[in-house]
Every structure is written in structure tokens, then in C-alpha cells.
């Protein structure tokens, strides 16, 4: 029994733990380097983010992403985390009430923390509600921003799966290009 035990355990560790994953990494790096490397966005050679990972945008001049519960700072992509607060948590209700700050019919994604803490998207409605603020801060016509939002709405995948959404980093990069 010892021979099959040891040869299968060590053999599978070398095959499944070293050879195959390294082979997959090498093939992926050759055939799909962008995606295998984390879908990074570069500007003048410098990495400015990943198309898949949300970033923290503050102030009135940007489209803001969802509230993030990563611990050291929001959108800490080296340590993903959710709030993990339960539905009857007083702390959660207080946080939601503060984010709503007296408004009505606030889109749920704008009032609640994402599950990953790194959600790259907001709902189209949440993007539309930010237009007036950004237009005022950047001194841009509202209509131009409204068009920008509509252009940046990503449809459901295959026309069916998931939800319509707006990638916050992408729309903010487009916004910056307005200068």
C-alpha cells in the first residue's frame, strides 16, 4: 500500500501542483497575455489600473463607484473584503442612512457596500444621478455627460446574463479625455 500511496501523492503534487499550472501559465502568457496578466490598462507605459478592478474616486469631479468595505482604505485591491454586516445590523442601517443622506429612491447599489470591495461597476441609474454634480464641478453641459453615460452602458452579456452596468474607471477615463 505504501508504494501506490507515495507515488500517487507525490506524483500528483508534481503534476497537478507544478507541471500543469506552470504549463498553463506559460501558454496563457503566450496566447492571451493581456487577460492572463490582469487586464491592465496602461497610459504612456504606466499601469493606471485594471479594467476589471474598481478604483476609489472621490470628490465632485468624478463618477464615484460603490461604497467599498476593504479595511485599510476603500478599494484596496491587495485585500478584498465585504462588510459582512447582517440585514438587521444597526451599523449597516446607519451606514446606509448616511449614504442616502435624505434623498429618496436612491439606487441600492449606491447605498450599499459591494461584496468584493472592488466592484468596477455601478448601475446605469446610479451613473445618471451623478451627472448634474459632475457637470457643475467640471463646467460641462449636462447633455454631453448624459450622452457619455448612455454610451458607456454595457448591455447584459449574450443579451441575457447579468445586469446592465457602467464601468466606473472607463467612464472616468473618457471623462478625463474631455479636457
Amino acid at each position, binding site marked *: *500500500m505504501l508504494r*501506490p*500511496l507515495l*507515488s*500517487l501523492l507525490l506524483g*500528483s*503534487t508534481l503534476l497537478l501542483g507544478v507541471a*500543469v*499550472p506552470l504549463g*498553463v*501559465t506559460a501558454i*496563457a502568457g503566450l496566447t*492571451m497575455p493581456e*487577460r*492572463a*496578466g490582469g*487586464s*491592465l490598462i496602461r497610459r504612456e507605459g504606466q*499601469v*493606471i*489600473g*485594471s*479594467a476589471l*478592478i474598481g*478604483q*476609489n*474616486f*472621490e*470628490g465632485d469631479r468624478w463618477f464615484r463607484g*460603490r461604497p467599498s468595505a476593504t479595511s485599510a482604505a476603500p478599494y484596496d*485591491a*491587495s*485585500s*478584498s473584503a*465585504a462588510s*459582512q*454586516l*447582517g*440585514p*438587521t*445590523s444597526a451599523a449597516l442601517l446607519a451606514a446606509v*442612512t448616511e449614504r442616502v443622506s435624505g434623498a*429618496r429612491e436612491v*439606487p*441600492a447599489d449606491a447605498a*450599499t*457596500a*459591494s*461584496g*468584493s470591495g472592488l466592484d*468596477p*461597476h*455601478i448601475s446605469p*441609474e446610479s451613473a445618471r444621478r451623478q451627472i448634474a454634480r459632475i457637470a457643475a464641478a467640471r463646467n460641462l453641459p449636462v447633455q454631453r455627460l448624459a450622452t457619455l453615460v448612455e454610451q458607456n452602458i454595457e448591455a447584459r*452579456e449574450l443579451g441575457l*446574463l*447579468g445586469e446592465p*452596468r457602467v464601468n466606473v*474607471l472607463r467612464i472616468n*477615463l473618457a471623462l478625463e479625455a474631455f479636457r
Partner: protein
Amino acid sequence: MTLIGWAQIALVLGCALLLAVPVGRWLAALAEGRLGGLARLDAAVLRAAGVDASRGQSWQGFLLAMLAFNAAGFALLYAILRLQGVLPLNPQGFASIPPYLAFNTAISFVTNTNWQAYSGEAAMSHLSQMMGLAVQNFLSAATGIALAFAVMRAFATGGVTQLGNFWADLTRITLWLLLPGTLLAAFAFIAMGVPQTLAASVIAATPSGGEQTIALGPVAFQLAIKHLGTNGGGFFGVNSLHPFEGPSALATSLQIVLQVVLPFGLCLAFGRIVGDARQGRALLAVMVGFVLVATLSIYAAEAAGNPLHIAAGVSPIQGNMEGKDVRFGLALAALFTATTTGASCGAVNAMIDSFTPLGGLVPLFLIQLGEVLPGGVGSGLYGMLVFALLAVFIAGLMVGRTPEYLGKKVQAREVKLAMLAVLVLPAVILGFTAAALVLPMGLASLQDAGPHGLTEMLYAYSSAAGNNGSAFGGLTADTPWLNTTLGLSMLLGRFAFVIPVLAIAGSLAAKPRAPEGPGTLPTHGPLFIGLLAGVILILGGLQYLPSLALGPIAEHFAMLAGQTF
């Protein structure tokens, strides 16, 4: 709930069922050693490993080989974790994993639970992930399927004492099923944006003038086996919610298909092996029925939203979005959650701790029902067969005949062993939860007060004993008390269940297969499907009702009454 949401659920579940047909056929071929063009290569591998596939093992021999292999796997993984700090491929320079956490994690991955008391990107080196955790993802899944093969053979044959050869099964399942499936899925995931790189992280200079450190790694390969093997242990802390582990709705859909296709396929393989496809389809029907009801219940509960938040000014249109990401949508979150808890996978694409009380009750109850709906790879089928034996026994009591299942007489020995197996789960779950809720070292781990706190603790022990691995994540799990007791729960939930099951298999294999008589209860029709579902609910679920009433149900009414904690 929307029509589009229902269509998403139907499409993904439909794809899984379609894929289960060829997968079931291949599983049956593997169990019967019909390897076609692979036969020569297979023989060469087995010879090199010193395995003689023609030498069958008794149930005790099979059990002993399985236990020895898992014990050695535990020792190797424990050593890798404890030595992580001095081993190579550790670009972030993580320290070695401390003893209690290494004990818990090693048991967790060997038992196919993948409970994680650590956060992957902040604790585990690439070497630990690849050579330690991912290898056990394969081996624990292959162990489960090998056990299921042994049990299937017991029903298919008569008058024999041998259940097959554990080593041959383990090798064939790993090489000819899990590895090719994982490779295909890994490349599909990379094409969808899941990273597969040895780089540890990259620093981005963000447009708003800040800096963001983005953790990377060889994610895709581990992600693929994590779902195909119903393991569930994430590369990143937030598991399949992380945009690198679940980059799109399409990726999350593929994960759903992967995590149910083997449990579904094993039912169909069972039907083929016992020579009556209808028998496998009946078991599958029970599983799919429960998954559908659970999915729609979660979907309805989450789509209704949190009334406390709606009263504070949140629009009810999107439903409850705390702990969820925008791209998946509620329907796929509900289907993912129902299948990951029903299938003993334990990966998450939405944080269950932040679900509405009833939305959180469903996954908890699915785990408590014994992880048979559809259950983990292998464990789902043999768990379901235990319930099937109890169902024919209860039916036999009602009409006063000796019960039989697939021509095998079910007698006192089998029923006693089946009850022993079924009682392991509630004893472990309720016993340890009760202890943790009165002892200060247990209570110190709770994040939430009130009934939600009770649910957090109940969920942790249910998840561990059910070998699921998902969590109400607010619980501080990395403490000596929880690491130890949850580790023991995982061990008992896996092996204290398997031993009586293999004993049943040994006893059934020796009995002849009697032909059907006029008094035989058909075990493929709607009557039996209903009976089996009832037995699962009553025998598997009834004992948890008091604790569920104190936890999620009490919280539901507190929420409706506007009370927070």
C-alpha cells in the same frame, strides 16, 4: 424578480443538465474501467505507480486505503503551510501559517470542505496555493468520486465482497476526468479575464492621483478545479466575488455549471451502472427539484430587498445589494448560492452574511439537509443513496414488507448504519454550535448581535460538518477554539459519514440481486421521488427547526418589526 432573471436561471441550469449527460456516460465508463483509447496509457501509469487495478478491495481495504491516502495528504499539506515562509515561490514574503490555522486549513482541503479562516491574497504564497491547496482540490474530489464508485458497484453486483480498487479509481478520476475538465475550464476562464500569472501584484498610478496595489496570481487553474471538484476555496478572500475570480456574468454562469455537472452526472452514471437509467434520473429529479425551489426562494427574498433600508430612502428596484456586485445580478447570485450550498462547493458570488434573513436561511438549510442536493462530487450521490435506503425502509414499514432497493434486501444492519450516518451531521452541528454559544472563546468570535449572531455560528458548524466551506463571513474564524472545533467538525462530517456508508456498501455487495416481484416498490416513479424528498426533509431537516426559529426566522420578524441589533 424579473422574467429575464428566470430566463438566466433556466438557461444555466439547462446547460448543466445537458452537459451532465455525456459526463455521466464517461463517469460510468471510468467506474467500469472502460477507457477506450486511453487504456494503454492508463495501464502504464498504474503500473508505474505500483497499482494492480484487477485486484479488488473489500470495503475495509478500500476504506483503509482511502484513510491512509487522506492522512498522508493532510500531513503533506500541513507541512507545506507550516514551512511556507522558507519555501520558494513566495513573492510577497508571507510568513508560515501558524499551527491552529494550518491544522484547520489542511483538514479543510483534504475533506473537500475548503472552509477558509484566512484571506488568500493576504496569507498564502503561490507555492502553497498551487502545490498545497490546489492539489488537494483534485485529490479530495477524486476521493469522493472513488467512494461513490465503490457504493455504485455494491448495488450493481451481487454475491461479491470486493468494491473495486481505490488506487486505480483515484488515478483514473484524476487523470481522465478532473484534469482535462480543469484544463478546458481554466483556459475558458482566462479568456474571460481571470489572471494566470506568477506575478504577485502590480502597482497602478490611478487617474485620480492615488496608488492601487492589485494582487495577481495563478488564479484561473485553481478556480477551475475549485468549482469542478466542488471544493470552493477561493484564491482571493472574497472568493468568486472578486473581479479576478468572477470577472463577468458569463464566468459566474460557467462556475455554476461546473459545480453541479459532476454531482448531476454521477446520478446518471449510477443509473447506467445498475442497468436502469430511470433509477439515476429519479435521484437527479429530487436534486434538481430542491435546487429550483431553493433558487427561487433566495431570488424572491433578495429581490424584495431590506425593508429597513427601503424605509431609509433606498429604491427597492434592485433588491438587497449589500455584499453583492453589480455585474452578476440577483438571479445568478441566487442560483449560484443555491448550487454552491446544495452541492457542497462553498464558493460564493454574493456574501451570504448580508442576505435577508430568509435569503440566508435557504443556503443554511440546504447544507443541513445533508449535502445531497445535489451534494459534493461523490459525496452527494452516496449521501443520496443513504436517504434512498431509508425511504424504501419507511415505505416498507408502511406496507409491512421487507424493503428492497434495486433488488437488494434492506435489512436491520443497513438501516442501522444508514441512521448512524444520518445522525452524524446534526450531532456535530448542534453539539458544537451549542458549546460555542455558551463558551466565552466561542462567543468572542461573533460579529453580529441578536439572532443574526446565532445564525453566524450555526452556519459555521453546518458548513464545516457538511463539508461545504461557505461562511457567514462576519464570524472571526481564525481563533484556536474555532480552528480546532471546526476542524474536528469537518473530519467527522466527512469520515464519520463515509465509514458507515462503506460498511453498507460492503454488506449490500454480498447480497444477491433479487428480481422484481409484484410487491416491489418501483424506485423510479413520482411516488418514490416524492417519498425520497419527504424523507430528506423530515429525517435530514426536522432536527434543525428549533435553531432555525431562533436564528433566521426570528431575525426575519425582527426586521419586519423595524428592529436592529
